[in-house]
């Protein structure tokens, strides 16, 4: 198992760099690194209620990261994941608004998630088409579409979907409790949403690593010109890759609306799309580490709220740690590549 050992040393190396860097930073501002790390840890794993908050972040973050993995496999940088999540949230909110009086909440919630996935997939397809038909690089298309999606959600919240008499940054009127994504008594995280996410992980593992489709997707990503010699359409796989990517981001957006905020708010994506990009990069574009890295990032996000409360430190430290992780990972991966190049 030399492979596993290498991964482990890489991970430890990355963590050591990040810890040293963050500790130095904290020492410079005159705060105790031990205390800060202690608060981060206790604030995320210190109790079941806190851990369930972590899981509430883990769910959308993992879904976005899984989606990104499909796009990366087909060779695409789906920066538009953020906007796709927003569109997913809009789709779900639209269905829930429409179904407020339907008397069948379970059906409505299912429809809401499906509508969110569909709308987000179409939004992703738009970026894919711009790439395959218009020759627009997907990074620019994605960024552009992210801005447009922000425009749409703000327009809806301040316009047609505003609260009676009041347009507010706090979003649309909350849905009645019957239309909240179901959870169990006393639970702060929905076990059903958790199960959905675990299911998505398992399916992704099957599809990407053990199916012909996954193999073809990978082939397209590696060498789009060569695959056409084998009768595969690179464009088809590219579009399918980004559509799945969008659908998973849309599911994340739909769950944010139905399970977390119970309404549509401008910041509904909470930046999880962009954070997902970091997760996937840190995972070196492999599936297995994604759930764990996502859990680590989610814990940082939730735990960091302790810093301003207990130490009067800015909570953006969690962002610094996340960024430092990715940078040192790129460094470690890069060094590894260099070394391999020298001693083949």
């Amino acid at each position, binding site marked *: 198992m030399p492979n596993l050992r290498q991964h482990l040393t890489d991970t430890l190396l990355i963590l050591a760099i990040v810890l040293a860097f963050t500790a130095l930073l904290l020492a410079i501002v005159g705060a105790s690194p031990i205390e800060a790390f202690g608060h981060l840890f206790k*604030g995320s794993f210190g*109790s079941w*209620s*806190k851990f369930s*908050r972590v899981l*509430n*972040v883990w769910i959308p973050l993992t879904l976005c990261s899984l989606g990104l993995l499909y796009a990366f496999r087909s060779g695409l940088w789906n920066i538009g994941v953020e906007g796709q999540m927003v569109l997913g949230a809009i789709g779900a909110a639209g269905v829930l608004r429409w179904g407020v009086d339907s008397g069948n909440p379970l059906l409505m919630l299912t429809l809401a998630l499906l509508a969110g996935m569909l709308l987000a997939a179409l939004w992703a397809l738009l970026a894919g088409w711009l790439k395959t038909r218009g020759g627009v690089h997907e990074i620019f298309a994605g960024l552009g579409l992210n801005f447009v999606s*922000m425009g749409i959600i*703000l327009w809806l919240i*301040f316009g047609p979907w505003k609260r009676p*008499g*009041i*347009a*507010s*940054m*706090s979003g649309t009127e*909350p849905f009645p409790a019957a239309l909240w994504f179901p959870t169990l008594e006393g639970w*702060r995280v929905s076990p059903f949403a958790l199960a959905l996410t675990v299911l998505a992980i398992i399916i992704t593992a099957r599809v990407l690593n053990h199916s012909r489709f996954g193999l073809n997707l990978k082939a397209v990503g590696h060498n789009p010109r060569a695959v056409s010699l084998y009768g595969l359409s690179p464009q088809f796989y590219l579009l399918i890759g980004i559509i799945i990517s969008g659908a998973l981001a849309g599911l994340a957006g739909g769950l944010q609306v139905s399970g*977390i*905020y*119970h*309404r549509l*708010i*401008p*910041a509904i*994506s*909470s*930046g*999880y799309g962009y954070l997902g990009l970091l997760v996937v990069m840190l995972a070196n574009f492999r599936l297995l580490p994604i759930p764990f890295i996502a859990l680590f990032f989610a814990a940082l*996000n*939730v735990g960091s*709220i*302790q810093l*301003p*409360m207990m130490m009067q430190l800015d*909570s953006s430290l969690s962002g610094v740690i996340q960024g430092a992780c990715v940078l040192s990972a790129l460094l470690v991966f890069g060094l590894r590549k260099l070394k391999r190049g020298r001693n083949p």
Partner: protein
Amino acid sequence: MRSRVRALLVSAAAALLCLFAPAAVISAEEVTFGMLLVGPHNDHGWSQAHYEGGRYVEEKVAGSKMIYIDKVNPADRPGLTIPMVVDDLVDKGATLIIGNSDDMKDGIREAAAQHPEIKFIHISGDDVLTGKAPANLSNLMGRMEYGKMMAGFVAGLTTNSGKVAYLGPLINEETRRLAVSSYLGARHAWTQVRGKPADQFRFKVSWIGFWFNIPGVTADPTQVARNFLDTGHDVVLSGIDTTEALIVADQRRKEGADVYALPYDFIGSCNSAPEACLGVPYFNWGPDYARIVRGLANGEWKQSWTWTNPNWADINDIDHSAIGFVPGAALSEENKAHLQAFIDDLGSGKLNLFSGPLNYQDGTPYLQAGEKASDKQIWYLKQLLEGMEGASK
């Protein structure tokens, strides 16, 4: 669980203390309260006023302790939800939670339902009036309408061009009634004190979209304030939580323009540019907070929707007045005297600016001649008034 065990221990210890302590000093229970601030705790505005109110409680009510968390809004802290922060504050021992923004309405209500044993105060809300509040949730607000009337009055006294501007946040019932109060004060000064014709007076409201600047989402308040001054307005009243209007007016004064501004919310807001500042209507949350915390320490809680008056004997009495108005360095002595007379008349009830005839902006009647507005008619103001420029919805 742990907090319950701790509560049990604390109450056991308290019981023991009561047994052994002399009867006179039966110590009340110590109260830890959590404060959710929508903006930074040092914003020189709305959030700082609440923060200082919390510090006042710590000073005045023995054994009380505040845990605060600021910038509680989804733009500054993506992914954060109110119920999540409340869970954490309760873990830390808080038995009272104060949420200081209208924006937190839904989250506070959800958290209050999840924690029936914890008491909640939602500032500026009306869940108690609408019947949506669970029994452990109260609403509190100061009657800033009076503060805004004073601010408007001073603006109306000072303006040379007869054009006063109001830098508004988002549009809701609260912000409409505050803009309208400012307008009524300004118009009163212009027509009644200065005796000038009403048709030479302009009052313009522009809304930026939120309580403070969120780049890319709201209009930039600095830009909006500059626009006001570029279009002939010479006094800007701020209705937002931060001090951009005052800063812009100060810059223009340094370039030679004769313009002024009035910030909002926080007693110390004038300090950043005293020469451009005509005064500031501010909230003084300390006395109300201390009253509530003291009550809780004695085991008293009653759900209420409270709209606290200023202390008319001295509106700047820090221990008793919920709102106040500090005249700025830029306000002339003569106008200061006018202001004092105005305040006295408001306090004695001789003057009531919410008296008919008043029309809504679209011309429909708000108050008939001789009619005085009830609390609810003021609280739930449906539109701006006739004579004001700017969006009502």
